[in-house]
């Protein structure tokens, strides 16, 4: 297997290199998607199926769709895609390499503590009510990180709303999806299956690979599929229910942390008997918010409405 792993690592580096250096934006995006898929394979080889799932669903799938959507909305980007000057390239590459070397040296000189956080977390896995180390770390031991990540996702959507609204009109529907008999049948088969898989992944996150981000990404993929087929449209109008769903994850997560303070005496410390139900509720709320945020990132709109069937 060492040969396959080395080959995969080499291809990853070459792909990243080509992806950065290509002047054709479309090819860069396609290479980026391939890079994401190979990265997912690398995570799987490193025994991190959670990360592999997230990388494949978000890194390769949704990010690829977002990039392609932006590319299409930009019209012909190759015309004004100018190559920076040679000197600038050398300075940027040289600066990056110096920084990488310095960071490497700094990391190398860092004293390795016996009480590494990872070892501590693995030791106390029993207290987390979940046997899945990655979920335990993300939701129980590193709740703050996950909470802040949700905040970052929301900020990204707000940024998109500010930046992308003028582009929204050009993204409505593709003529290839109109008037074909096959697409409605495919939607009827695939969308329910995707919703089922997404819901399962969120639940599975409590005991095996999966979780809110992975499941939410699959739910979002179903939404993007519907949007691509014209069944879901971006809407300029604000809708209160949609906004509430957008902040549902953040709200439920913070509330669960705050309301249970009297029981354990600390923010986001859950009593052992309540961990499992609280985690399940929090995970599903997070996933709903993640899915809706990702779909809105794709449509670039403030609201959603049903398209013509």
């Amino acid at each position: 297997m060492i040969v396959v792993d080395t080959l995969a690592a080499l291809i990853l580096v070459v792909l990243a290199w080509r992806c950065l250096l290509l002047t054709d934006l479309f090819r860069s995006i396609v290479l980026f998607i391939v890079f994401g898929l190979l990265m997912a394979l690398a995570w799987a080889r490193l025994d991190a199926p959670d990360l592999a799932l997230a990388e494949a669903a978000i890194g390769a799938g949704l990010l690829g769709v977002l990039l392609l959507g932006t590319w299409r909305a930009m019209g012909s980007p190759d015309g004004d895609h100018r190559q920076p000057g040679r000197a600038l390239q050398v300075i940027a590459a040289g600066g990056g390499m110096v920084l990488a070397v310095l960071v490497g040296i700094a990391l190398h000189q860092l004293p390795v503590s016996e009480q590494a956080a990872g070892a501590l977390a693995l030791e106390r896995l029993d207290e987390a009510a979940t046997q899945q180390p990655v979920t335990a770390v993300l939701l129980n031991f590193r709740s703050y990180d996950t909470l802040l990540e949700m905040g970052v996702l929301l900020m990204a959507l707000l940024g998109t709303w500010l930046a992308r609204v003028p582009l929204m009109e050009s993204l409505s529907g593709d003529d290839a999806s109109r008037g074909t008999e096959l697409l409605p049948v495919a939607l009827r088969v695939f969308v329910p299956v995707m919703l089922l898989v997404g819901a399962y992944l969120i639940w599975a996150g409590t005991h095996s690979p999966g979780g809110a981000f992975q499941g939410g990404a699959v739910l979002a993929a179903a939404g993007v599929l519907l949007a691509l087929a014209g069944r879901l449209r971006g809407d300029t109008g604000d809708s209160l229910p949609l906004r509430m769903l957008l902040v549902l994850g953040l709200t439920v997560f913070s509330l669960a942390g705050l309301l249970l303070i009297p029981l354990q005496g600390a923010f986001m410390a859950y009593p052992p008997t309540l961990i499992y139900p609280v985690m399940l509720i929090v995970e599903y709320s997070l996933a709903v918010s993640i899915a809706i945020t990702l779909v809105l990132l794709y449509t670039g709109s403030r609201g959603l409405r049903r398209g013509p069937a």
Partner: protein
Amino acid sequence: MTLPGVALLLTGLLFYLAGTVGLLRFPDVYSRLHAITKADNVGLGLLCLGIALLSSSWGIAALLALVWLLAIGAATVGCHLIARHSLLERQRGRRE
């Protein structure tokens, strides 16, 4: 079950190789789609069958069958949409 399983895996890989060569060498969209969808669907089927034999578990075999069916469905719809888009573009090009 190991020998037939491995034999199926290797045959599946051959189909993938043929499909990829077709994708790279064929001249236009339609023949490329023809190569990659047909060859890859059979290749994936053989891989699934091989893995099912190697795992010797009915549960895993059923899951793999489901995966194969869904992949075939997705490939069919994707192929249809790409071919349709290409045809519409060409017709539009002629009209102009």
